[in-house]
């Protein structure tokens, strides 16, 4: 039986395909929830000091086999005019820290003085993750009101919004003085990428619902209703994400490679299977039904995403019509199904198919989630003994896509990435009409590769790279990328990140899909809203071993 090869980077790493990514069972929030189930994490409130209006603080404690962590949540009054979705706001409805241990009164006081300030606060290495969330005004008020009346909220409104609050940032890795990633990366519970961040958002989800129920109870003691479990499960945590996330994928090429490699390896394993058993076919069809349900709940006003959703819905109908007969085939039926998707479906549909095919094959692929972290220091060194000729050869082999651009054209060189002085956030500027291009961030990989290739033309083939870098250190970061790409095919996004037509949300969606986000709702070409954990189990469901519904 043929072993199916991994999809090549020329297919996988194109911006349009990355911008059609779907979450899979390898996504970080799924991996985190599997770990919670495996290790039977116990989640319970340790403090609940909230007044009638829901203001105050709460501590939600998570007991794991080796350690205990706490989500410390603060809820504070916020004028409607201050409630901006953007990372640049200065006040929020709620703010959070994932704390290493269980905080005592002195630590709560320290956190109360800093956490609501977010970026303007200072934090300690006991503080692992920092976040904040604003209420979805229309839904939060409605839910509290209805529950206080002893009724359930309107299911349509729950479906249309999908969350009670949305986060506008989730910070890790040493930001504003919180713990460095090094401090927790060796702990088994946080060994995977962004696992502590995902735990934080998972707990925030529980807190937002508990807060609404608390306010309803205080408003109508003895009469208020609890939220219906089915409605409850539909609620996730919203998130608004902008350009701040985009440079990460470019600045961490080895990590990007590991994420992609894990997903592509999983796909290749499933495609290589000799047969499709009844259980996996049923699992696939259940995942397909869940995805169709999710598409129905997936709201967007974005024209392009709206059109893509319509195509995706049609693609799912096609899959639904064909999957049974294709999977009944005798030779490598999953490969046949993938080929069908490749030949007949939109990019959205093809990438949805990847997620669907992985879904019933947990036993075959789940361990790959543990391969998605990496030691970037291990690949940092430049091989200075490599000859300039060999380096040129690597560029020709791995960067043909970059060499194809003509950076003499205004369109290819239209933009520049920078950090805004006003907001200290990444931004995208128009090179030919805005000031600041001399302060460009090093994200124009394709252009820099072209320039390095031109420099190498003038170097003697046998001359060592170290010699070139000694005289021209401006190529140091580019040489590092090229050498890394040699053995790691998925390090580079194969698109021009400064092109006039580049859509930054393609980068954002790819990263967010790896997180496990769903219901992508672009609000411009530079920021979007998503939902995390919508339809997913709650910590108490997992401990009770209720079957998890597929998150698609």
């Amino acid at each position, binding site marked *: 039986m043929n072993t199916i090869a991994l999809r090549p980077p020329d297919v996988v790493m194109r911006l349009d395909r990355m911008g059609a990514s779907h979450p899979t069972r390898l996504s970080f929030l799924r991996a985190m929830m599997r770990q919670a189930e495996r290790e039977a994490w116990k989640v319970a409130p340790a403090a609940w000091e909230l007044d009638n209006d829901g203001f105050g603080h709460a501590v939600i404690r998570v007991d794991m086999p080796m350690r205990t962590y706490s989500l410390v949540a603060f809820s504070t009054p916020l004028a409607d005019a201050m409630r901006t979705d953007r990372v640049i706001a200065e006040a929020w409805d709620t703010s959070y820290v994932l704390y290493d241990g269980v905080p005592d009164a002195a630590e709560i006081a320290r956190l109360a003085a800093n956490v609501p300030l977010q970026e303007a606060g200072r934090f300690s290495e006991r503080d692992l993750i920092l976040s904040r969330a604003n209420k979805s005004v229309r839904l939060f008020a409605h839910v509290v009101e209805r529950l206080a009346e002893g009724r359930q909220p309107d299911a349509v409104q729950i479906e249309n919004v999908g969350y009670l609050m949305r986060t506008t940032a989730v910070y890790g890795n040493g930001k504003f*003085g919180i713990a460095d990633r090094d401090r927790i990366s060796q702990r088994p519970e946080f060994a995977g990428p962004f696992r502590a961040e995902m735990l934080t958002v998972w707990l925030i989800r529980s807190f937002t619902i508990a807060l609404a129920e608390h306010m309803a109870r205080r408003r109508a003691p003895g009469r208020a209703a609890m939220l219906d479990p089915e409605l409850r499960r539909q609620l996730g945590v919203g998130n608004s994400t902008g350009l701040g996330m985009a440079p990460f994928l470019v600045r961490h090429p080895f990590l990007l490679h590991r994420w992609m490699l894990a997903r592509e390896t999983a796909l290749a394993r499933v495609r290589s299977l000799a047969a499709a058993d009844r259980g996996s076919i049923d699992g696939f069809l259940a995942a397909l039904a869940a995805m169709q349900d999710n598409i129905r709940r997936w709201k967007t006003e974005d024209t392009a995403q709206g059109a893509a959703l319509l195509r995706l819905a049609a693609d799912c109908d096609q899959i639904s019509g064909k999957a049974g007969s294709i999977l009944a085939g005798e030779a490598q039926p999953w490969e046949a199904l993938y080929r069908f998707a490749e030949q007949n479906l939109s990019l959205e549909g093809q990438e949805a198919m990847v997620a669907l095919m992985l879904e019933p094959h947990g036993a075959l692929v789940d361990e790959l989630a543990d391969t998605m972290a990496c030691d970037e220091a291990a690949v940092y060194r430049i091989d200075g003994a490599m000859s300039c000729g060999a380096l040129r050869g690597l560029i020709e082999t791995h960067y043909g896509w970059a060499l194809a651009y003509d950076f003499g054209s205004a369109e290819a060189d239209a933009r520049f990435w920078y950090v805004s002085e006003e907001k200290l956030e990444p931004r995208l500027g128009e090179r030919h009409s*805005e000031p600041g291009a001399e302060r460009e961030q090093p994200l124009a990989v394709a252009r820099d590769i072209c320039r390095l290739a031109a420099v190498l033309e003038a170097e003697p083939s046998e001359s060592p790279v170290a010699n070139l870098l000694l005289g021209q250190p401006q190529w140091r970061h580019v040489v590092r990328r090229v050498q890394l790409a040699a053995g790691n095919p998925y390090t580079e996004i194969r698109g021009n990140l400064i092109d006039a037509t580049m859509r930054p949300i393609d980068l954002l969606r790819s990263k967010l899909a790896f997180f496990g986000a769903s219901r992508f709702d672009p609000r411009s070409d530079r920021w979007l809203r998503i939902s995390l954990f919508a339809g997913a189990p709650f910590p108490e469901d997992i401990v009770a071993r209720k079957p998890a519904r597929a998150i698609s």
Partner: protein
Amino acid sequence: MIELSLNEVEMLAAKAARGAGFNWGPCDDIGKCARALAAGGLPWAPSLLALARDSPSLAAPTLSFPAEAGSAISAPTDGSCLCPIRTGALIADRPGLLMGHPLRIDRVAHPLWLVGFAALWDVRVHVSWRGACADVAGGAIAAKAGDAGWLAPDADVTISGGPDDVREPDRRRRASIDPTVFEALGAMAARTYVPASASSRATGAGGSRTDDE
């Protein structure tokens, strides 16, 4: 004193170096060196300020290739000092230079940065100059003697093989920085930021709005 996480050290050092005019790749190196120095309890921040001030007058090392064990890195003939970042990067790129007998490098400016680089070299070495010496193993730095010498503006540096039987030194998880130095490095880092314009406010992040939903 202000307490920083090591990631803050790395990011601040890299940005400040960029603001001071270093190229991006060397800025990455400087960030990682600063982090290693901070974890070793060494004064990366005042040394970075001094390095930024002096860097325009510092020279690149010269070396005859192929670089084999025992090759010397020559000091500039015009009497200027070697840039520790370019010297450290050269050794990082050509680890063969560290094989065999000790490597002596004359007139290195702000030699502390060679200790930072030694933490990136993935070898066990002993770095010393008049008034300072450190063992570096497994990316961690154990300062053996110094204080006065760490901030030497220049020195003749010797790098030799470190003892095999020394366990990896402990690393600090936090760094302390003088508020004045922190502010000065912040001002350097701010040179990498682009001031807002009417057009960048309108389009740079895709539009702004109050969340009324």
